């Protein structure tokens, strides 16, 4: 119990005394997961909308794949990216300038995009499909083009889309398997909050691990409060 209390006090001290290493880890975590979410949103919101709005042959299978992806273990996504980018992998040997190297921030972002995308697609799809078919027909009747109907439906489904983004962010900010595998957890370079917690715990530095854990919780809390406020405005 004393360990927990000491750890919490030390964690708070680290947080509020401007420990540079801690803050660089926080900023890197926010940057990696923030950019991964942004890229994922650009890809996944249109895809989720399409799946929610359009019927096509094989849609059920695509939906099942998306739902499977929502439960994708991060470490498996990390393994896939590792095999993709490794020197002995699929893209690694090609030396294409736009293919990120392993143990870089870009590789971590790619892994997190793969983890977040099915979550954003799945929740967006459900939110869009939930908008009444009558409303879509009504908008068409008022002269809306297909794109205008889609935009209006997305606006109607905005609460669900916010939930999709929050869910996507939650799935990547808290994951450790993929970022550690493809980022290498290198101090000052690719170490993010979850990787740092893992390391500090292994080394018995529970105070730092608890401090980092508190930061992670605080970050998630701030994001969720923001999302809840947005949801309130959307009602």
């Amino acid at each position, binding site marked *: 119990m004393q360990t927990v209390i000491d750890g919490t006090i030390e964690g708070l001290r680290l947080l509020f005394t401007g420990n540079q290493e801690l803050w660089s880890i926080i900023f890197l975590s926010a940057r990696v997961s923030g950019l991964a979410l942004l890229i994922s949103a650009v890809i996944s919101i249109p895809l989720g909308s399409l799946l929610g709005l359009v019927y096509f042959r094989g849609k059920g299978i695509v939906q099942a794949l998306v739902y499977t992806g929502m439960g994708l273990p991060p470490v498996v996504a990390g393994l896939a990216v590792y095999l993709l980018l490794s020197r002995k992998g699929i893209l690694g040997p090609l030396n294409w300038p736009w293919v990120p190297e392993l143990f870089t921030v870009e590789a971590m972002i790619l892994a997190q995009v793969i983890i977040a995308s099915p979550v954003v697609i799945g929740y967006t799809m459900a939110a869009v499909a939930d908008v*009444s078919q*009558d*409303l879509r*027909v*009504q*908008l*068409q*009747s*008022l*002269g*809306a*083009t297909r794109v*205008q109907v889609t935009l*209006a439906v997305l*606006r*109607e489904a905005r609460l669900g889309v916010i939930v999709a983004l929050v869910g996507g962010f939650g799935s990547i900010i808290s994951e450790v398997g993929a970022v550690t595998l493809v980022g290498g957890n290198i101090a000052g370079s690719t170490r993010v909050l979850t990787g740092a917690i893992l390391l500090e715990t292994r080394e018995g530095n529970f105070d730092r691990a608890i401090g980092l854990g508190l930061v992670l919780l605080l970050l998630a809390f701030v994001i969720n409060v923001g999302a809840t406020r947005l949801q309130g405005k959307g*009602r």
Partner: protein
Amino acid sequence: MDILFELDEVKKAYAGRVVLNVNNLQLRRGEILGIVGPSGAGKSTLLRLLNFLEYPDQGTLRYRGQVVTPRLPLDLRREVTTVFQRPALLNASVEENVTYGLGLRGKRDSRADVSAAIQRMGLEELRHAAARTLSGGEAQRVALARAMVIHPQVLLLDEPTANLDPYNVSLIEGAVREINQREGATVILVTHNVFQARRLAKRVALLLNGQIIELAPTRDFFEAPCDERTRAFVNGEMIY
């Protein structure tokens, strides 16, 4: 006589069942045409075809002389709109709902039209209210105001006053008359309510099992119908 819509041997089927089979029908510019018939007669399907929401499986539908296909130009499509039985409103304020169609046309600044429509439908006090808080009658008035502001050439009404109280019915019927008389809009009114068809329409058609049984000036339709089925329907006898 200026013909807006012309249906020639038009058939529409769902899952192999023919729900609309119209040999020939011409809808005139500026008229109010009432379409009556029992449930499942094909009335709503006809309106969906006239609003270009669906297309005939067979036959030809023409609007202003142009054959209606999915490639019908957007400006022609936007001349026609429908007010449905169940008003589907955006999760936004009354004013935003009324403005929606104008926004689609890049005319969001037509404030005078919006205010006039809101006032005409008795919605001034609800202007900033959330649409989800409205009663059925209020929501239907918003739906009609939303249609009014875009000044449609053709206004299609699908049971617009079903389940509404007399105050809302009277308000909506008055507005429909006004849209027809002042703006010259053609109105196609689908209704179960033969009394409403008699009050509003200049011509009335009976649709039964997807077919037009009789189409006549309102007075003739109600007082001297040619077809026995029309007489039975007008007299409130069941026909299925």
